[in-house]
């Protein structure tokens, strides 16, 4: 049966609005070489590579074969996974399963994007059904705005509550040299920023970013040779539920008992597997794929950190700030850097650094359990848990 798996090396580029100094393969290579150095490995030590991005963000078809020069996959197994915003977390899960299968001992996971090379919204619009959705309503911001209005209607949450999240993550990012946005914002600044699609304002949204991230996953035996303290995978779970833009708003109706079923169900599955009964108490730090500020309220509920409608109060209590009970996005999260295919994997990388005590000025004290999420598609959800202690048994 499956092997225990740990993260033993992390690399990422500094996230920037544009990287005209490198092409895609070169960007990937920066992160890969840093991860290999971190793991005390060379290209030769890697048994397999998993890579992901979104085709239409760079206009590259078959990224797995195209990227070989940069990824180090020459004469090695390489596989490409693409699931939209969840791509980076999907890639991390795939690397986990590669190793857990027993087929490979050292697997390199790569997520990257050069959003500056295309029109991100133009590409995202093509994610939606050409007959039903695309001609009428599509793209990321409008879809998130619908979620926000629904959430505000259900809970009475305010734009100011959301702005608190926007400010929190931007403040956290000031401690993160890898973050793209280093800006001092006030709640007032966010509230006064222009509306993109009511109630979502410029200050509520993630930026477009160029960046790459690479993470080395190792089997138990290989992890023992690692110069880094292993960050153990405790478990992973995901749900990708919907196919049409309107599905989430119709089907997750309150009468069904679910507000954000993809995240609630994947969290429930993962917590059951790992034995998490009180996430706020048991999880020490969370790196969440918050593409916009309102998600920082709603996800707290979907992830079981508080009850329905209690997200705003929890966040405003300071529990998710640095120094709080469970700091959320010490890195600044996607609100400060969103190279989409890399973003989910960066959450994993940050969790590993937190567990290893290597997160620098954004380190949370004594991290035993860390949570990473990916978000994408039609409100899809990936969840991964990492621990400082080797788990007794594998819980994929």
């Amino acid at each position: 049966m499956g092997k225990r798996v740990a993260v033993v090396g992390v690399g990422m580029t500094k996230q920037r609005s544009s990287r005209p100094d490198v092409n895609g393969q070169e960007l990937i290579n920066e992160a890969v070489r840093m991860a290999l150095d971190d793991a005390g490995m060379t290209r030769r030590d890697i048994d397999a590579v998993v890579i992901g991005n979104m085709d239409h963000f760079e206009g590259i078809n078959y990224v797995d074969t195209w990227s070989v020069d940069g990824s180090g996959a020459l004469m090695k197994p390489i596989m490409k996974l693409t699931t939209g915003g969840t791509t980076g977390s999907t890639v991390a899960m795939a690397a986990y399963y590669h190793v857990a299968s027993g087929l490979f001992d050292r697997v390199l996971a790569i997520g990257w994007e050069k959003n500056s090379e295309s029109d991100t919204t133009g590409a995202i619009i093509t994610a939606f059904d050409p007959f039903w959705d695309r001609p009428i309503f599509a793209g990321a911001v409008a879809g998130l705005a619908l979620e926000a209005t629904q959430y505000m209607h259900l809970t009475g949450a305010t734009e100011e509550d959301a702005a608190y999240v926007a400010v929190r993550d931007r403040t956290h990012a000031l401690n993160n040299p890898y973050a793209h946005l280093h800006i001092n914002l006030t709640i007032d600044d966010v509230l006064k920023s222009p509306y993109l699609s009511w109630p979502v304002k410029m200050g509520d949204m993630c930026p477009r970013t160029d960046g790459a991230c690479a993470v080395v996953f190792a089997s138990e035996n290989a992890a023992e040779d690692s110069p880094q303290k292993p960050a153990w995978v405790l478990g992973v779970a995901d749900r990708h539920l919907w196919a049409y833009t309107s599905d989430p708003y119709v089907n997750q109706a309150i009468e069904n008992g679910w507000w954000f079923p993809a995240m609630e169900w994947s969290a429930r599955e993962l917590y059951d597997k790992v034995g998490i009964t009180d996430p706020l108490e048991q999880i020490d730090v969370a790196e969440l794929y918050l593409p916009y500020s309102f998600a920082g309220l709603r996800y707290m509920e979907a992830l079981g950190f508080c009850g329905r409608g209690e997200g705003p109060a929890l966040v405003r209590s300071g529990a998710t700030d640095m120094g709080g009970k469970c700091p959320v996005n010490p890195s600044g999260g996607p609100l400060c850097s969103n190279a989409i295919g890399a973003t989910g994997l960066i959450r994993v990388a940050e969790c590993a650094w937190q567990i290893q005590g290597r997160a620098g000025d954004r380190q949370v004290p004594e991290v035993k359990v860390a949570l990473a999420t990916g978000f994408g598609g039609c409100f899809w959800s990936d969840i991964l848990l990492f621990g400082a202690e080797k788990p007794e048994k594998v819980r994929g």
Partner: protein
Amino acid sequence: MEPVAIVGVGMTEMRRERKADGYADLVYEATRKALDDAGMEIAEVDNVITVSNDFFDGRTISSMAVQDACGSFDKNVSTVEGDGTFGAAYGLMRILSGSFGTTLVCVHHKGSESQMPLITNAMFDPLYERFLGIEAVSSSALQARAYMEKYGITEEQCALVSVKNHRNAFANPVAQLPLELTVEQVLASPYIADPIKLLDCCPVSDGASAVILASEERAKKLAAKPVWVKGVAYCSDAYHLGDRDLSDVRALEEAARKAYAMAGIGDPAREVDLVELYDAFTYMELMWLEGLGFCARGEGGKLTASGDTAPGGRLPVNVSGGCLSGNPVLVAGLNRVIECVLQVRGDAGERQVDGVRTAVAHGINGPCGQSHCVWVLGGEK
């Protein structure tokens, strides 16, 4: 590797234009067939891998269109972009991890809805290669020439593959292009990009397929006859065409070496009973046969001319008709696996080859077979 079996397979008919069916319709049909084949309900599927390509579908997150159709609701699901053999390899890993007892792998493609040359042109690097207009046929022609000149492979030998595989397709109800051809007809067909002629090329196709993999424990509980995964490996060569010796098949040799080692196969030419490989162009069948170790380098033409690879021969190759008789890209690789499963089970109908105990299936990714995936399947655990 712990025993994992393929317990259900489903293929749609491959057609030039399945106008009445969208992606989701095709995936639903293939999934339904695979479930019926396995005697399973969708609730018994523990997790799902979809396989698709955003460029072919003209859609970012192309898997989103088929989430309903593959029954992944409330299941763990992921998407591989690439050939179906790679997607199935990930499905296999998820069972070996111990997390799941069964994996459904489904793959779709509609060549009719886009323009293949424009999509395959986008495989090439935008700075250095794409604006030269290169695409799948012309790049493969470069490889065909490099290979044929190096080993003295003739266009007649390549034509034999076209004649054989199109003829084989008559016995395969899902095949798109059964043709009764002569070598002369193939040789007389117009050049697209020398030395590749029209009848050396696979057609443009629509189709979908699905397989269900199961752990030993779960396979035991099913009525279906399990076909066991004996070995799987994949490997990528260099990307830029000029970085590679295009006449070489080292990535395939490496993948085959690993897959055979897993399967305990020492001499594939003696121990394998049937081969389904990715013959997008006729020369590929010869090259890949060599890379898979069924003959020495440069001997693929002679092996084919000897008749050994025909249905009654010593080593039947592409008795399904191969990609030459239907090539929904991505689907086509998984269809190679499915044909092997049917042959090992003895369920291949009119085209059944006697006594298939061990079969090899093969898929490719990237230009000129840059990346290869090799599957060894068998009737015994």
